[in-house]
């Protein structure tokens, strides 16, 4: 019965062959630059040929070693036979089929790897939350307090990009290994060559896609995460023949269990953490220092008892657009108050979006101030207090800041006063006491690299 997929190695072993034949098969195998399963099939087939050939020669009168040598002489040089067999196997048809099959299976592998990657990232997030929220809570908060830039980098929309990129890394690794395996099997090309081709082609394709095509919220963490995808793909392709690393499952489960128990028990005894320094000035001295920084934008105009003319009316932030609303301090539709009368004296009243930086006034006090590196706002927008859309005595402005790398902003309102000088009319209070307006860069890695700060 013809069994196209039968494995010759699964059949009962044949009688031993003479040493000369074994040596011939060894030299033949050494010259066969083909996948291992094909080499094994050819070796079995040629071994069977020798059994038949030796039996026929012995029936002609030659015995033992002489029959074996005659069989070898008839079949010819093993190196030349190997070269002919390689040529016979490496057809263009198999090359194309190998490429197509490899791409198909890589795609399927990527889909499965994506699901696996999401599961791994989700599990890692949960584990991280448990560990950093209990056992490692003090050092974690200390690190975040000492490195506010790290805390900012691990928050917001760009972190979502990074998490998805990590899942993509898993998908790329699985896809590369499946693609190489299938391409090698079908095309009959040398595994080392197939691995290099897949690694180079996949790296180039994914690198271009990651740098020039994938548009998403970005920061340094997300950029590095996305750039890791092509490298992981190449690694998966080049190591596709490496035996799979088997995890000692029982030990992993036991370690997770011990970690959970330790975390739970330690959590009861973790000393209370006073938390990072507040983002807003909460002492008179710090507040005064902050106001001096605000005055670099424009000197404050106050109408009574140090009150600004305008107060904040809310804001939206977190994406590529920040929105700020302000309202007249004492606006009354029936009778304009002193603040409203003061505002009416100003011309060219406008919103100004300034880049913000964190300024540590002391060990305990941190402030957000306009970035001293800039002497002008990033953008301005007219303040219209008569727009019914926002309500009487209120004005709102939107700034598209999604294409600059700066992610922290302070919005001021200024106007030209009766003396012809520009004054600051509001005192940013920082939304919900949590810091400045925050935005996230949205675009490709290339746009992020070439964007202004």
């Amino acid at each position, binding site marked *: 019965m013809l069994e196209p*997929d039968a494995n010759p190695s699964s059949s009962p072993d044949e009688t031993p062959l003479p040493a000369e034949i074994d040596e011939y098969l060894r030299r033949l195998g050494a010259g066969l630059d083909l996948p291992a399963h094909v080499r094994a099939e050819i070796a079995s087939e040629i071994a069977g*040929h020798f059994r*038949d*050939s030796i039996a026929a020669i012995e029936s002609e009168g030659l015995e033992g070693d002489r029959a074996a040598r005659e069989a070898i002489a008839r079949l010819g040089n093993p190196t030349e036979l190997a070269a*002919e*067999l390689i*040529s016979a196997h490496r057809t263009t*048809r198999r090359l194309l089929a190998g490429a197509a099959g490899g791409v198909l299976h890589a795609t399927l592998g990527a889909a499965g790897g994506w699901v696996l990657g999401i599961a791994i990232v989700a599990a890692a997030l949960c584990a991280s939350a448990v560990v950093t929220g209990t056992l490692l809570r003090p050092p974690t908060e200390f690190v975040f307090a000492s490195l506010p830039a790290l805390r900012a980098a691990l928050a917001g929309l760009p972190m979502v990009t990074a998490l998805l990129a990590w899942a993509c890394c898993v998908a790329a690794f699985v896809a590369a290994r499946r693609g190489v395996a299938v391409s090698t099997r079908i095309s009959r090309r040398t595994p080392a060559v197939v691995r290099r081709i897949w690694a180079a082609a996949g790296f180039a394709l994914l690198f271009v896609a990651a740098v020039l095509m994938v548009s998403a919220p970005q920061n340094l963490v997300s950029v590095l995460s996305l750039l890791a995808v092509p490298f992981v793909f190449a690694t998966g392709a080049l190591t596709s023949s490496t035996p799979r690393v088997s995890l000692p499952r029982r030990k992993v489960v036991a370690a997770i269990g011990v970690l959970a128990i330790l975390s739970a028990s330690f959590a009861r005894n973790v000393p209370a953490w006073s938390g990072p320094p507040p983002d807003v000035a909460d002492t008179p001295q710090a507040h005064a220092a902050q106001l001096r920084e605000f005055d670099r934008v424009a000197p404050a105009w106050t109408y009574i008892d140090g009150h600004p003319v305008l107060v904040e009316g809310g804001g939206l932030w977190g994406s590529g657009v920040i929105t700020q609303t302000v309202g007249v301090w004492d606006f009354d539709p029936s009778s304009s108050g002193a603040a409203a009368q003061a505002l009416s004296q100003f011309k060219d009243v406008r919103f100004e979006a300034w880049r913000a930086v964190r300024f540590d006034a002391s060990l305990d006090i941190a402030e957000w101030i306009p970035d001293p590196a800039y002497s002008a706002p990033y953008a301005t927008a007219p303040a219209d207090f008569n727009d019914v859309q926002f309500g009487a005595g209120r004005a709102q402005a939107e700034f598209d800041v999604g294409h600059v790398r700066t992610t922290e902003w302070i919005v001021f309102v200024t106007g030209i006063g009766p003396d012809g000088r520009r004054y600051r009319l509001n005192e940013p209070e920082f939304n919900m006491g949590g810091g400045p307006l925050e935005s996230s860069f949205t675009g490709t890695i290339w746009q992020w690299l070439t964007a202004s700060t």
Partner: protein
Amino acid sequence: MATVSAESLAAVMAAIGNDRLSGYGVLVRLGKPPAAQGTPELALYPTLHRLEAVGRLRAGWSTDSSGRTRRLYRRS
């Protein structure tokens, strides 16, 4: 390096006919000495594998009653 001529390919296909033959079976059917038939023994297996690669032959493993395993070829 030996080359496989169109005549050799045709000779192998004709030798197989509608049967299922091992490489040695094809050789026997071609007659001895093989070189006289235009299919040297060295070129036999490359020829069979080439015909399989282009889809004109199908190959599979078969075990006979004595336990011998052979790779058999037949027309597609």
